[in-house]
């Protein structure tokens, strides 16, 4: 059992628990976690950045609303650069 400790009325917190939320996905780009909304086969839009590095929040390609494109890339073990802005 989980106890929710909040000054908000519990009915507000649990309102809509039977509804489905927006279909966001988590992807990892260059060491930072991004919450994105897929728009088409190869495109997504940044909704939220989850990172502890303050510098990540200054990167223009991580700003919420930015469109990212998935591009297949062949690299030698490097995971960075799997996206193209």
């Amino acid at each position: 059992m989980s106890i929710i400790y909040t000054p908000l009325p519990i009915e507000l917190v649990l309102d809509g628990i039977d509804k489905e939320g927006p279909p966001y996905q988590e992807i990892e780009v260059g060491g930072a976690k991004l919450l994105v909304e897929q728009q088409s086969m190869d495109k997504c839009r940044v909704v939220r950045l989850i990172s502890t590095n303050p510098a990540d929040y200054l990167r223009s390609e991580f700003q919420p609303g930015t469109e990212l494109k998935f591009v297949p890339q062949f690299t030698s073990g490097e995971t960075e650069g799997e996206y193209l802005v």
Partner: protein
Amino acid sequence: MSEFEWTRFPGGDNTGKPHTINPELPGQPGIAPNPDILIPQEPGTVEPDAPGVHPEPGEEPQRIRKTKQGINKKGDINTIKELGQITMPQTKTNIHCLPIVGQIEGHMVLPPQNKTTKYEHMIPQLVALEENPEIEGVLIILNTIGGDVEAGLAIAEMITSMSKPTVSLVLGGGHSIGVPVSVAANYSFIAETASMTIHPIRLTGLVIGVPQTYEYLDKMQDRVVNFITRHSKVTDQKLRELMFRTGELARDIGTVLIGKDAVDCGMIDEMGGISSAVAKLNQLIEQRRNTGGLVQ
């Protein structure tokens, strides 16, 4: 919608409807009008100082100085490597931040109209911060409305058991389970306008029928109270007095502490903003270096 909202729009937008964005809308930020153009900003419109933009050739010496400072004591080879980068200049920082916003989400996935900070994100982040030798201090920024007791206490225990200096800053609100998280840091700050609600744990809508239920809730309450009193200067007696005070909250018993009140009762160390929090963190980092906690 909630008692914490202050807006000139009647009704509010937090309807719990799924978040949909119309791609045809012209004013949407970040959407290029032409689908072929996928750059976030037009090349001509960016300011030269904006991150990710290469400085003019004339500004090069300044940039070298900045870079050297940024990667302090890592040697010249690294400096040259840094200058050779074609992508945006990496600003290396020894302080990382941990924003805790909305509800702290734990064992239960909350409905989508809640903004949440999830423990499956926070706990690995805290592990990474503890383990990464380049990170010397952690700044915890809170604007939380509370949330899951166990998730909040887990995060608070993680923060308090870190070997690196931690400083917390309460902005906006640090309510309920946000209190143990904010006092978990080595040093805590609160903004002048920020508030912290102290109230008892309860199970809304559930009738306490048996003494065991009450005992259980009381134990959960003690976990939170003990953590707060162990990690701040507030006494158990004072905290319980604040928690069970009547006549302050409209729908509940308890107290709202605003800025200075939280400092006066000993819960938070100091009133201040981001500059004082970063200055304190840098001071703690310096202390830790001098006492030999960190070699190099």
